[in-house]
């Protein structure tokens, strides 16, 4: 068998730190090599060195017939160019060229580098696109593809360039879990076709399946290599690493307390044993108070069971500002229909699967148990740090009473970092101010109506997709059935409503809307509204829109008078609904939701809400809304305001934490402006000059029994948090 790659005694330093330590291995034609190991072990660096994206300080790399570097001496340009022709690389974050189409992404280098003709390049590109199952996307631009599709295109782009060696650097790490499979499938096929490949991956099960050879790296060294590394690890470090992925032989169910970072998961396990649904936080509060007492830390707690634990500054950090972390103690309790779990007394059972922790058919409580355990670990650690305040709030998932009532005078920090973000790589810098109302219009019936002079119609919208009024409202394909109904009703003269109802709540996009109304026989022109209905049906062909004449009319039917009907319709019609404003980064910053319209007792109740991340826009909207309310004589019965906070791009907190993240991960943290309501809004409202951001490890499907927490992400978050406490925010 022919040797394609030979690596011998390769060393590389970053300053004094040795990131690659005497690496040697070789790879034969047709073999698939998988490199596994913890983050920061040098796997990616090795791959980048082989592709000449980074320089090696010593050693030999030979690809096919040519030396890239021989005993520390790089070959001349011509030889390196030849080598460059023989290796291709697939990157973690795809790096497709955004300004050209999918097809051009694949043909471009073929034409420029291999000098293929346009036709030939296109033919090959189409062949490759067929292979990865994306032929129909060829005219699209990368920004219109999902992550998984982008990565498949990136692979096709390399394949079209015929090379001897294909390197893949964590090809699935940047993908949402549900998209990983499609990419692995493509790679598996390549492996079956005997493409020579090196794959750096965290997908252990996948590595085990496709690899002809596996290398386990840690600390810049090859610890162990061979075919059996995963099934039969010899070295302790390998075993330790593999434990996390539940691949340790003979030990099927992994004990969570052995998972790194142990100091964090220890607490995650402990708090998971304590039932803590919203408004039932006494036990978990007592646990935290006990925790503080044992360690001699001062604490404050109140009748709502909020707790603040304070850790004094270490000597070297006396001059630094106090820093606060915050998480909520309660969790959402959801279970599958088959589960017998009792959230009031049963502990959450934790199951480890590859890189994820999940619960047994219940919610996991990683929202926000992950944050709570990170804070406990910080309080318990002997890292030197400034004065630390850990704020544990209650009932975040329901009433937010914790943050509304907590005594803010007990918080001396001017910077609060919430650990409730739920997505690594993202930082929430603004949350929505949410105002909710319900108003009523008193019903008056028209007693003079002679029903035989009227047609009576039913207009019904059902099977709409609904959704969250903050997160989903920009998706116009969901539609708001109340608004659609109002559009039709508004076209009809002298409507008299008989019955009106909708599904939903103030903060949910409605899924159904039904109205029955009467119109005078001699003045009604049905053609006008049929046009509208036709268009609506075109736009919503999966949903049901029914418009029908009622044949058997109940003689005792009561009909509302025109004035009431028209006011209701006009309000619904004029209500400015949906995602209304975006900032320059295309973040949604103003949205309104007409949530429900129903008859209650003797009035019509209308529920609506407004979310904003910008005070000026909010004021403008409110002014218009006030006019509409006044014009249609809506009586406001109830309203509440949940506070939000606006982005502060100049804050040191945002800046230094972003910088740190960038330094550690080599990519920017994404700053998020959310239309959700967070506790931060209340902190910012109640405290003067406080900076607030939210970060956190990756969690998936929160609030559902499929909730999962990523172990590796938790480890990275722990490392980040440990460094955050060392930042001097005053510099």
């Amino acid at each position: 068998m022919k040797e394609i790659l030979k690596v011998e005694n390769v060393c590389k330093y970053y300053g004094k730190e040795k990131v690659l330590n005497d690496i040697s291995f070789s790879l034969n034609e047709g073999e698939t090599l998988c490199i596994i190991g913890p983050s920061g072990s040098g796997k990616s660096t090795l791959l980048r060195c082989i592709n000449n994206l980074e320089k090696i300080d010593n050693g030999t790399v030979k690809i096919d017939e040519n030396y890239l570097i021989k005993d520390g001496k790089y070959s001349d340009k011509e030889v390196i160019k030849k080598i460059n022709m023989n290796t291709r690389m697939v990157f973690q974050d795809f790096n497709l060229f955004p300004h050209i189409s999918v097809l051009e992404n694949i043909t471009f280098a073929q034409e420029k580098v291999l000098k293929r003709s346009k036709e030939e390049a296109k033919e090959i590109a189409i062949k490759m696109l067929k292979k990865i199952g994306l032929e129909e996307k060829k005219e699209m631009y990368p920004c219109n593809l999902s992550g998984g599709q982008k990565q498949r295109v990136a692979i096709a782009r390399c394949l079209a360039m015929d090379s001897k060696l294909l390197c893949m650097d964590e090809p699935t790490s940047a993908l949402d879990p549900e998209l990983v499979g499609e990419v692995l499938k493509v790679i598996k096929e390549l492996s079956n076709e005997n493409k020579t490949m090196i794959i750096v991956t965290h997908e252990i099960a996948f590595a085990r399946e496709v690899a002809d050879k596996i290398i386990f790296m840690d600390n810049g060294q090859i610890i162990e290599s061979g075919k059996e590394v995963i099934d039969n690890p010899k070295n302790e470090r390998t075993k330790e690493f593999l434990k996390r992925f539940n691949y340790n032989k003979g030990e099927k169910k992994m004990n969570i307390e052995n998972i790194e970072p142990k100091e964090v998961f220890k607490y995650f396990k402990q708090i998971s044993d304590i039932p803590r649904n919203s408004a039932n936080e006494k036990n978990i509060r007592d646990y935290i108070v006990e925790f503080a007492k044992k360690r001699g830390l001062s604490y404050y707690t109140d009748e709502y069971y909020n707790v603040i634990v304070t850790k004094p500054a270490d000597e070297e950090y006396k001059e630094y500002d106090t820093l606060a972390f915050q998480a909520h103690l309660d969790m959402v309790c959801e279970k599958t229909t088959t589960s017998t779990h009792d959230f009031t007394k049963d502990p959450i059972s934790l199951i480890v699967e590859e890189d994820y922790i999940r619960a047994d058919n219940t919610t996991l409580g990683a929202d926000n148990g992950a944050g709570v355990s990170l804070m406990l670990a910080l309080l318990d650690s002997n890292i030197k740090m400034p004065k630390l305040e850990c704020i544990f709030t209650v009932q975040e998932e329901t009433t937010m009473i914790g943050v509304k009532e907590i005594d803010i005078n007990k918080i001396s920090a001017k910077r609060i970092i919430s650990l409730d973000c739920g997505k690594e790589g993202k930082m929430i810098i603004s949350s929505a101010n949410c105002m909710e109302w319900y108003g009523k219009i008193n019903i008056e019936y028209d007693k003079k109506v002679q029903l035989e002079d009227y047609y009576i119609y039913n207009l019904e919208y059902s099977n709409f997709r609904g959704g969250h009024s903050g997160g989903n409202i920009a998706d116009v394909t969901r539609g708001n059935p109340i608004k659609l109904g109002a559009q039709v009703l508004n076209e009809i003269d002298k409507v008299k409503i008989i019955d009106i109802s909708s599904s939903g709540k103030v903060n949910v996009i409605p899924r159904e809307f039904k109205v029955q109304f009467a119109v005078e026989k001699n003045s009604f022109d049905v053609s006008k509204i049929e046009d509208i209905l036709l268009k609506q049906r075109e736009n919503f062909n999966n949903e049901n829109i029914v418009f029908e004449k009622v044949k058997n009319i109940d003689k005792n039917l009561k009909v509302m008078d025109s004035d009431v009907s028209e006011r209701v319709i006009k309000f619904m019609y004029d209500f400015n609904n949906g995602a209304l404003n975006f900032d320059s980064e295309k973040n949604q910053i103003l949205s309104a939701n007409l949530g429900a319209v129903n008859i209650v007792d003797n009035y019509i109740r209308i529920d609506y809400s407004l979310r904003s991340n910008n005070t000026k826009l909010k004021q403008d909207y409110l002014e218009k809304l006030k006019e509409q309310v006044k014009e249609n004589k809506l009586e406001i019965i109830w309203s509440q305001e949940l506070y939000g906070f606006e982005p502060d791009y100049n804050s040191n907190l945002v800046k230094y934490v972003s910088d740190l993240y960038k330094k550690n991960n080599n990519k920017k943290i994404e700053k998020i402006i959310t239309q959700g309501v967070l506790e931060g809004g209340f902190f910012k409202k109640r405290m003067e000059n406080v900076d607030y951001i939210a970060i956190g490890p990756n969690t998936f499907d929160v609030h559902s029994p499929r909730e999962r927490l990523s172990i590796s992400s938790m480890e990275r978050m722990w490392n980040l948090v440990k460094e955050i406490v060392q930042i001097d925010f005053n510099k």
Partner: protein
Amino acid sequence: MFNLCKILFSGLGTTLVIFAITLVLSIPLGIIVAILRNSKNIIISKITALYILIIRGTPMVLQIIFVYFAPYYMFKLSMDRFIAIIIAFVVNYTAYFSEIFRSGINSIPKGQTEAAYTLGLNKFQIYMYIILPQVVKKILPATSNEVISLVKTTSLAQIIGISEMFSLAQKQANYLFSITPLLLAGAYYLVLVGIISIIFNLTEKKLDYYN
């Protein structure tokens, strides 16, 4: 009034020629300076940094006067006014453009270059086909600012006696004891800037197909 329009219109030609030549020369030069400024070679990058510092750090009026008179005082060479003004403008605008381009180039993720390199593209191809097309989209707003300011800055050419539109307007204003010629000149600038803005907006729209 019609006469006045005509007089100013004759100056508009000079204004536009200065504008166009400056633009045509300083944009490609700006790209080159931006690339040099990014160079790994410290000497090259420091020299370009110094050039940018001097140009941005001194008044343009001074630069124009320097270009026109310095050769005479130093070497007894007399410069053509028009050539002098073009040199001064190009040297000045190249510096400003280069910083815009550099910020654009630096904003393109490193991964783009790396991906292109591993596909076998050479440095020139990477810049030409991968980086610069993406840079264009990013720098359009900043560039439009600079181009608009150039239109108006052409009026400085009168310092060394070139009769472009604004200087003609001033003369007419003095001659007629009226502010109308100046307002008219203002209107001409406004129209020019309007046209430029429209062109930039259209280009921006055209590049909206990806993000």
